[in-house]
């Protein structure tokens, strides 16, 4: 079973490597975007899926990473690759400092607090015009080279970040500390009684998640070479991230990535076909996922596809 999975995974990586030589620039871009969401969803899953803390505003770290790379490359002329560790470190610092007070909150309150943090950071970045360029945004230096080369460069960097996040998530799922996180998700009081230092573990989970999402943000900034506070902090990112995690199943390692692939490719197809009502379709899609697939696609259809299972899901949580 493990070998089967491994072979599938290797095939997946080989296909990814071969793809840029056969598909057009448009699809290259779409796939890069998909990997971006895959990386965000995978990175956020450590705190959301594994630890069970709905960090709705986890996109804050994405924005922080994007702005760290943006400011370091424009104001300090730092090469792009050297900025990525700073993205991770700033994510870790912010998550650790905020984690100590905020992770005491539970459920809705935690979710709202993270949204509050995200909005506060957004407003601050918006106002620090001298450093961050403020509301009009920040233009990063464009990478040297042919457009085709740049496209392929990011096509390989982005899945690199995603696979790195996946690797970290896999390691976390295997080590003792990962079990502690899952114990916290199932029953925090019981975990605490068992001798797990819950505040430390929760902060650890959030810091790791923040570092991964921060790195993704850094790559995003260099990829688009233009960032502004309203896109990188919020917009539809948080809800998309959450929908992806739900679709794939938050308790699994690979689920959020698959969820990202499915949702992003669907919304891309919708985007190209019905550009005017794209947002409405996205909203309906999210509502549909919550109503019919709250446990995730793979958990629901474990023993084969049937519509009955969808309706069973619908009935399960109703009042």
């Amino acid at each position: 079973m493990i070998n089967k999975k491994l072979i599938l995974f290797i095939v997946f990586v080989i296909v990814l490597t071969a793809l840029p030589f056969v598909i057009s620039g448009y699809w290259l871009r779409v796939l890069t975007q998909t990997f971006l969401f895959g990386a965000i969803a995978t990175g956020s899953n450590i705190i959301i899926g594994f630890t069970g803390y709905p960090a709705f505003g986890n996109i804050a770290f994405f924005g922080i990473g994007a702005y760290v790379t943006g400011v370091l490359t424009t104001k300090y002329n730092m090469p792009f690759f050297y900025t990525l560790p700073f993205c991770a470190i700033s994510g870790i610092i912010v998550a650790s400092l905020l984690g100590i007070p905020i992770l005491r909150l539970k459920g809705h309150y935690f979710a709202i607090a993270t949204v509050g943090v995200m909005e506060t950071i957004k407003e601050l970045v918006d106002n620090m015009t001298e450093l961050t360029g403020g509301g009009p945004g920040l233009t990063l230096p464009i990478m040297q080279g042919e457009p085709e080369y740049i496209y392929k460069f990011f096509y390989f960097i982005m899945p690199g970040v995603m696979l790195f996040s996946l690797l970290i998530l896999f390691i976390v799922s295997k080590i003792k500390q990962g079990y502690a996180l899952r114990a916290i998700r199932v029953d925090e009081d019981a975990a605490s009684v068992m001798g797990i230092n819950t505040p430390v573990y929760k902060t650890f989970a959030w810091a790791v998640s923040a570092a991964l999402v921060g790195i993704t943000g850094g790559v995003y900034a260099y990829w688009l070479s233009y960032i502004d506070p309203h896109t990188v902090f919020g917009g539809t990112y948080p809800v998309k991230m959450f929908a992806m995690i739900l679709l794939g199943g938050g308790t699994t390692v690979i689920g959020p990535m698959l969820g990202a692939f499915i949702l992003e490719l669907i919304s891309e197809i919708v985007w190209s076909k019905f550009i005017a009502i794209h947002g409405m379709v996205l909203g309906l899609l999210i509502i549909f996922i919550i109503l019919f697939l709250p446990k995730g696609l793979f958990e629901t259809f474990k023993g084969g596809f049937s519509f009955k299972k969808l309706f069973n899901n619908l009935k399960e949580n109703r009042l």
Partner: protein
Amino acid sequence: MILQILVNGVLLGGFYALIGVGFSPVWGVTNIINLAHGAIALLGSYITYYMFQNLHLDPFLTLPVSFVCLYIFGYPVQRYLMNMVVKAQIFMLLILTFGLEIFLVNFMTTFFSADFRSVTPEYAGKSIEIAGVVIPYIRLAVFAICMVVTAIMGFFLEKTWTGKAIRATSLDLEAAMMTGISPKKIYSITFTSGSALAGLSGSLLSLTQAFSPNIAGGLALRAFIVAILGGLGRVEGAFLGGLLLGVIETLSAFYIGESYKNAIAFGLMVFMLIVKPSGLLGRKYYAEVKH
């Protein structure tokens, strides 16, 4: 000058209080954080706008219309959408309402356009001056309506049987069911009245400022802040929180800078969550997390 700022703050705060009064009980009773609250409010704004524009009705006369329309709108949303996931993990509802918000905002952008609209009746510019403080008539009227509606809502929750049943449900669902209260009915009444109040506040919003579908998120976040500051599920809490937020926003806009007022409001909310998550007036049970 300071007096003028305070008066402006209080007038703005009255409006925030009304948003909070619609939002907070829904959260406290049904455990739904209605992120679509702002979008629903904007539906009310558009009702007022189109009735004023096409039928030349006085905007204040359209208030009952948007109240009733959104009451009717709220029922199926609660019955066929929210009720389906109300017992699931808490963040499901959060995402569900966010999905609804995305849908509604894009619906409004598609059909009503993303342009900023405003409702300007003939008496829009008129104001009264008391001791050097200028108070526009419209803002005063909006404030008065907000206060009256808040008071009615408070009276409804405190004195009537239905209100008592709502409060009982928010305290302890199982015990309430044992005494014969049907949670289905209570949830539906709470949500629909929250939606109706949102519509009302949206209509009032259209009188005081220009609006477009894109401000929906900002409105919903304001409702959050009001609910958190004052204490969840309580009308007095929403009233206090609204006034506080209005005064703080105007004061910080004046002393620190217009562009920092949002940062301060959100920072204040996070601070409140850390220090006293149950809010200024929150009591035990009212702010407890339900699963």
